[in-house]
Every structure is written in C-alpha cells, then in structure tokens.
C-alpha cells in the first residue's frame, strides 16, 4: 500500500469508529437496529480488509482481491437492510400510505435488481467488471428507492424524523456518486480488458481514482451522520390517531370530482 492509500484507509476508518461510538452512545441499537448493523458492518469490513492486506499484500494478491469484493457484498446487504428499515419506520404508522407504497417500491426494487443481475452476467470478468456493474446497479437502485420514498413522504407531509432523513440523504449521496464513479471506471476497465493492452500503471491509476472518489463520498456520508449524532436525538414521534375509514371514502371522490371540474373549466377557458 502506498502512503496515499494508507491515508485514505485511515481517514475512513477513523470516521467509521467515531460513527460506531456515537451510535452506541445514542442507543440506536434499539431504535434503528439495521442501521446499527450497517455501521458495524462497514467498520468490520474495513478492519478485516486491512488485516487481510497486512497478511496477503494489496496488489496482485488474489485472496485480497476476492476478500475485498466479498466484504463489500456484505456492506451492500447491510445497506439494503437499512433502506428497508427506513421505509418501514417512515410509512408503517400510516397504514393507508404504507399499503399504497410498498407494492410500488417492491416492484421498482425487483425491476432494478433483475436489471443489475442481467447486466452483470454479461461481463467478461465476473468479479471485477461484473462486480462493478452489479454494485453500480445496486447503487442506482438504492438512490431511486430512497428518493421515491422521501418524495412520497414529502408529498403526503409525513413527519420524517431528522435521523431517518439524514441517513437516507447520506446513503443517496454516496450511492449517486458511486454510481457515476462505477459507470465511468467500469467502461474503462471493460475497454482495457477487451483490448488487452492495459498496462499495470493504467489499471493502478484507475484503482487509485476509484478509491479516492469512494473515500470522499464515504467521508461525506459518514461525516453527516456523525454530525447529526453529536447531540442527543429527540424522542421518536408518537403514532398518529387515524380517521375513521368512511371519511376518506366519502371525501376523496368528492375532492377529485371538483378538481376534475376545475381542470375541465380551465381547458374550456383556453379553448374559447
């Protein structure tokens, strides 16, 4: 490992340790168990990767290469579980909206993941180019699902707690940057592999660039979560008192009828 790579790893590890400590201090393990699991998983992945690198070396080691990808797969799984946890926490107290959105988000997730798997399957080197492709598609799927979730919450004026919002935005930021990163670098890697003229220096350069962008995006997300957790969190919001079902059944069609009439009139005004 170069000094630069050591610096990147150390800075990320520092933030990950700080996040785990803050999560513990704020007792998030009972409030957000999957997010706690995610924080622990990213720290465990980084520390174990450092251990594997210390034993097998960084460049040229097949064991290190495979281990890094497998541990990154675990981080992706933990992140997906966190997204599910956010979705459940935000929408579950509102059964009407929950019933409306879970199917939509499930279908969206399925389409994006199937697309990602099919995209990855066609790659020349499954674990390098294929892994990057799958990671890229999981990243964009996470971004789209979280963005949809936040926008639906915003549309219905659901009270999204600051902890949920910050976690969602942190993951969104990381995923969208990583999507761009993986898209560009995956194409370069695919070009090098198909042409067979890539030098070791070129591959190393791509690797360094990927690491730098990954570290910067990680640092921004981890930093925002640490910043949020610097103070005690407010108590979780109480569950809402729901209206009787008949109110919606009576009012909603009436509102829509009037809105339609208003639109018809606007159209008529424009035609006249």
């Amino acid at each position, binding site marked *: 490992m170069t000094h630069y790579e050591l610096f990147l790893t150390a800075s990320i590890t520092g933030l990950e340790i700080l996040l785990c400590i803050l999560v513990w201090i704020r007792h998030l393990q009972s409030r957000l168990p999957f997010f706690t699991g995610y924080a622990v998983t990213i720290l465990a992945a980084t520390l174990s990767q450092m251990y594997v690198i210390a034993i097998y070396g960084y460049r040229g080691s097949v064991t290190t290469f495979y281990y890094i990808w497998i541990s990154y797969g675990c981080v992706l799984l933990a992140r997906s579980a966190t997204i599910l946890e956010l979705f459940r926490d935000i929408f579950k107290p509102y059964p009407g909206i929950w019933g409306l959105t879970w199917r939509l988000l499930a279908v969206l997730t399925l389409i994006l993941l199937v697309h990602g798997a099919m995209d990855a399957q066609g790659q020349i080197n499954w674990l390098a180019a294929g892994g990057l492709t799958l990671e890229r598609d999981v990243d964009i799927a996470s971004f789209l699902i979280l963005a949809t979730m936040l926008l639906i919450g915003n549309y219905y004026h659901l009270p999204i707690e600051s902890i949920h919002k910050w976690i969602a935005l942190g993951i969104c930021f990381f995923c969208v940057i990583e999507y761009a990163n993986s898209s560009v670098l995956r194409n370069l890697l695919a070009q090098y592999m198909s042409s067979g003229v890539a030098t070791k220096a070129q591959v190393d350069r791509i690797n360094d660039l990927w690491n730098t962008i990954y570290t910067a995006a990680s640092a921004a997300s981890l930093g925002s979560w640490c910043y949020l957790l610097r103070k005690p969190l407010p108590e979780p919001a109480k569950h809402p008192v729901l209206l009787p079902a008949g109110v919606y059944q009576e*009012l909603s069609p009436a509102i829509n009828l009037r809105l339609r009439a208003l639109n018809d009139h606007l159209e008529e005004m424009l035609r006249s």
Partner: protein
Amino acid sequence: MSSLPIAMLLAIAAFAGLLWLLRKGKRPAKTAGALNSQEITGSRPRHYRFFPQIRQALSTADEEYLRKKVPADIAQRVRRERRAVARKFLSGLREDFSNLEQMGRMIAALSPDVNHAQETERLSLRLKFQFLYALVWLSLSTGRMPLRQIEHLTGLVGSLALRMEQAMVRINALTPEQNFHGLNA
C-alpha cells in the same frame, strides 16, 4: 477518463435536484390541529371571497368608460394594471386550490385504507392543473383571455371550499380529543 468529471457533475446535480424537490415541498407543517379549527382557518380558501370586489374592478362598464373618456395612454396603463390584478387574483385562487388539494392528501395520510386509483387520479389532476394554470396565466398576461372567464373558475373553487368546510366540521366532531399528533413532527 475525461467523462468522469461530467459524470460527477451529473451525480451531484441529481442529488441537488432531490434536495430541491424536498425543500420545495416544505411548507408550514399541517400539524396537530391540521384538521381542527385554527389550522383549517389558515388553510381553507380565502381568495375566492374577494371576487365581488375584483369583479367590480374589472367590470365591463369600467372598460367602456376607459375607452370613451380617458386618454389612450392612461387607458392602456389602467388595462395593464387591471390584468395584473386579475393575475394576482388567479394566483390566489391557485393557493386556494392547493390548500384544498393538500387537505385531501392529509386525509389520505390519516386514513387506514387508501384507494390507489383515487390517489393516482388526484396526483394527475394536480399536475394537469399546474400545466393549465400556466397556460391560463400566460393568456391572461398577453390579453388574449376575457376577464369574465375567471368568474366561473371562482365559483368552482368557492363551492369546493364550502363542501370542505362542512366536511371539516364533521371530522372535528368525530375526534373529541382534537389531537392529530401524527402530523406533528
């Protein structure tokens, strides 16, 4: 490698777009009393009630008077001002429409069962309204739309407002604790 900065800019723009969309929708929270007396007073339609005054200001008789008695340049200025008043009034009607539509969303949020078709329809009606409103506003600004057309529009919003007010009174009667703290974060 040269496409990397472009990709990064696009990624940051996508994230900024998400933040903007979230910020744009941030209005004063319709909270604890959202469906109760004070909050309803704040969100129920108000502007349509000013229509008699507006109608007086934009009346055809006034238009006749302007054409016959007032010098052309002054008449032109007055017409511009009248159009501006009409546009402001139209904008107020849009606010009324938004408040009522927002109430519909709040009722949906607090309902145990929500109809998919109703919600999709309301969303599409909202988008359509925004598009049509922009066109009407443009027509009004360019003087291609008679001011009397607004009258019917006002009547529609007014009747919707009346119906909603009656419904809110009934909802309040259904909830003796007067506490919808679900929307109170």
